């Protein structure tokens, strides 16, 4: 009996050891880099590539840039180190940015600038604390395709974000890209070649000409692929679908409708030409086309008043040394009479910079489509993967759900776009990174796993 009890004891002990076993999901997703060499991934692009968000470049955004997320996933497939020009912890807020400070009485978001822990080393011109180590993320906020051959773009008089990561101010962006010598690259350039014009309400800046865009695209893709590197090229999203342009219009429309106003009169493009439009033409969920940028919200309460506040603000910004003279010049050039009703009269029209009308939208749209066909053609010629951001962001205009979370292109509540209404949240960047991974896997026979997007934040609330 004693003997059999011992056997039973041993048997029970064995069962208890068994109980320590974990359940395994054996057919774990196979990770493979396929046809790719991921030893040195270099990211080429603008603010989106740099991790810009909330109207600024700061450490948290850099850490959640889509190239950094991509590189993290590449590492699972044997990818190399990926260095970013990170702001230090002490200067973590970099250029400064906007945070959501609260909500107004009507539930309107109130944004406040973050001004501590900045990395600004010079105010005039604005320059940032240098980062001159070798880096893999060459994203430069503000850069256009048309800038890549500009000498001195990395100087103190050029782009401060390029200046920050440049040791040789005469080196062009293209030369810097060539010197990086990647084995794999991503290239998402060209947004600013239309975006700058659009966000300025077509009242400032210019759209890059198709000739320059084509020539420079050819230059940079040729350079990136010269050593046989593979890569992914992203297209330019339809800028009229971003919350920067879709948030304010519906408010304008309902305010004017409530006030019984038939329509507005606005300046168009850069000159003094006026365009009248009916309230029904303003875009909201029910229809219409005319877009108001986020920058318009500050001046909405002034519609119908006899005021020149917008022009005084503009003059102070444009001619800080003599705003009085600046204002007189502006009013004369644009033939504005500030004693008339703001936005409702031909004499005191709504500023062009605070509106994207039909003709302006068509310019932006035509350019976007033309640039995208250039980018896609070049990518096809070099047999590169393509992330069609234009098609992607159009496809999600009606929103989608993932992990029980709703996403849309709505401002703040949509979880994708940061507080500037143009750039993405960390969650949005992770979603973009995953879309890129899918395109890369399809093209290069690789099995790079997508990232867990829930580990990246959306908008933070007070």
């Amino acid at each position, binding site marked *: 009996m004693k003997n059999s009890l011992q056997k039973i004891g041993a048997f029970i002990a064995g069962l208890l050891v*068994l109980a320590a076993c974990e359940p395994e*999901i054996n057919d774990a*997703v196979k990770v493979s880099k396929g046809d790719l060499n991921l030893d040195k991934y270099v990211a080429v692009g603008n603010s989106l590539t740099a991790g810009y968000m909330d109207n600024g470049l700061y450490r948290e955004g850099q850490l959640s840039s889509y190239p950094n997320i991509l590189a993290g996933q590449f590492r699972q497939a044997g990818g190399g180190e990926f260095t970013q020009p990170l702001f230090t912890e002490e200067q973590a807020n970099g250029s400064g940015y906007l945070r959501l400070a609260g909500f107004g009485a009507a539930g309107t978001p109130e944004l406040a600038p973050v001004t501590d822990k900045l990395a600004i080393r010079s105010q005039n011109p604005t320059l940032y604390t240098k980062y001159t180590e070798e880096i893999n993320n060459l994203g430069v906020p503000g850069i256009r395709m048309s800038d890549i051959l500009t000498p001195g773009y990395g100087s103190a008089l050029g782009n401060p974000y390029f200046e920050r990561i440049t040791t040789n101010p005469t080196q062009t962006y293209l030369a810097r890209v060539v010197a990086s010598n990647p084995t794999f690259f991503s290239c998402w350039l060209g947004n600013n070649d239309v975006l700058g014009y659009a966000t300025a309400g077509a009242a400032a800046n210019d759209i890059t000409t198709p000739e320059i865009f084509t020539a420079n695209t050819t230059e940079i893709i040729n350079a990136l692929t010269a050593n046989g590197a593979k890569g992914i090229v992203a297209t330019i999203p339809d800028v009229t679908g971003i919350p920067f342009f879709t948030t304010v219009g519906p408010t304008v429309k309902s305010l004017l409708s409530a006030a019984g106003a038939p329509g507005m009169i606005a300046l168009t493009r850069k000159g003094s030409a006026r365009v009248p439009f009916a309230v029904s033409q303003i875009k909201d969920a029910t229809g219409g086309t005319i877009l108001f940028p986020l920058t318009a919200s500050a001046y909405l309460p002034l519609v119908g008043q006899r005021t020149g506040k917008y022009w005084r603000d503009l003059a102070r910004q444009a001619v800080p040394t003599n705003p009085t003279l600046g204002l007189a010049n502006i009013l004369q050039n644009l033939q504005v009479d500030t004693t008339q009703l703001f936005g409702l009269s031909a004499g005191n029209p709504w500023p062009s910079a605070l509106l994207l009308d039909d003709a302006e939208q068509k310019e932006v749209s035509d350019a976007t489509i033309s640039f995208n066909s250039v980018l896609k053609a070049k990518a096809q010629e070099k047999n590169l993967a393509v992330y069609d951001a234009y098609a992607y962001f159009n496809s999600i205009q009606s929103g989608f759900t993932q992990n029980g979370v709703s996403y849309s292109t709505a401002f703040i509540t949509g979880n994708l776009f940061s507080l500037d209404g143009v750039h993405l949240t960390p969650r949005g960047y992770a979603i973009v990174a995953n879309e890129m991974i*899918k395109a890369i896997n399809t093209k290069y026979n690789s099995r790079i796993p997508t990232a867990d997007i829930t580990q990246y*934040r*959306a908008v933070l609330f007070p």
Partner: protein
Amino acid sequence: MRAKLLSILGGTLLSGMTYAGGFQVNLQGQKQIGMGHAGVGLARDQASIFFNPGALARIRQNGVQVGVSPLIAKIAYQEPEPGNTTAKTDNPLGTPFQVYGSYGFANDKARVGIGVYTPYGSTVNWGDTWQGRYGLNELTLRAIFIQPTFSYALTDKLSVGAGPIIALGHVNLQRSIPLQAANGQEGHVELDGNAVSYGFNAGIYFQATENLSVGLNYRSKVKMEVKDGDATFRVPSAAPIASRFPAGTQFDATLPLPANITLGLGLRATDQLTLAADVQFVQWSAYKSLRFDYTQTVNGSNFSENARNYQDVFIYRLGGEYAVSDQFQVRAGAYLDQSPVKDGYLTPETPDANALGLSVGLSYQLTEKLGLDASFLYLNRKKRTDAADLSGGVPGTFKSVGYIPGIAINYNF
């Protein structure tokens, strides 16, 4: 002795666990666990109060039995391709328990008894960082059934029994809310409530021949209705958000615990070998949806509802007992458990799949009156990949295993 054990149980009985199809926990008798949890067709011990009240009248001794089955359940998760993020549960040790006692009278033709046991429960803890956290952080579901029972031998061969069930239920469900505060803390909701409900358990036992017995058991559906449970929200404090998740919100919810019909056979193959086979039909189709009705408008709605649409299932059980001596018996058994969860309805609350249970057990009579039962059950649930697009669940692949040692003492007089 008995009082002491009960007090120990009182300290640990506070969680059941996912353990058969859905959130049924089939751990109601140590001898039966050792035989694949088959026992409706046998008049084996006081646990007949649960398995078949009709068989209770066949028990020849008065006695009590107290047992516990510490339950180690582990669940692994992997997100859908092309992602490869994994997660696993960190479940507390579950402690389903069984307490039975019975007393015979009227020439032993009649027998009264009482059972206290935990036939439903689920404790899963996925934590608040995994990918499915907006679906579930943690769920604790438990039901304690108290069943006074009367059993009567109508003839030498035929006996019947029945008893009302008083069910005490508790539910605690926690989820992350996808609203993040400036300090990075995510929103959170905790739903916590209690329920009291009623049902019954009835059975017939027929000793067809000296060696063959048949049992039929019906356990009714029990509708657990949570009234005035507390919904506690933690969200960013900004007024437009906080006002969508009002403090002091209460909720009502109903969770149906399904009816079970079980047909069992018992066969004394030899003097030493006894076999048992059960077929159990579980009417899970009663569970249509998980709905919470709130006393205030929460995030734009005064209720939340996710479809469940469970299906009825069969469980097949087979077990054997070999008497090494009068004092010592060993057992082994197995069961096949169908999942009531249809494709598209998988949830992290009960990431259910068809399962195979393998068990062993033994009994040792320590003294004339005092006996010890022990069992060990290994449960292997098939790996299951589901889009979870119909249940508001979490898509991905789930795999779970359970290890359940169990022990009971019985005292007969």
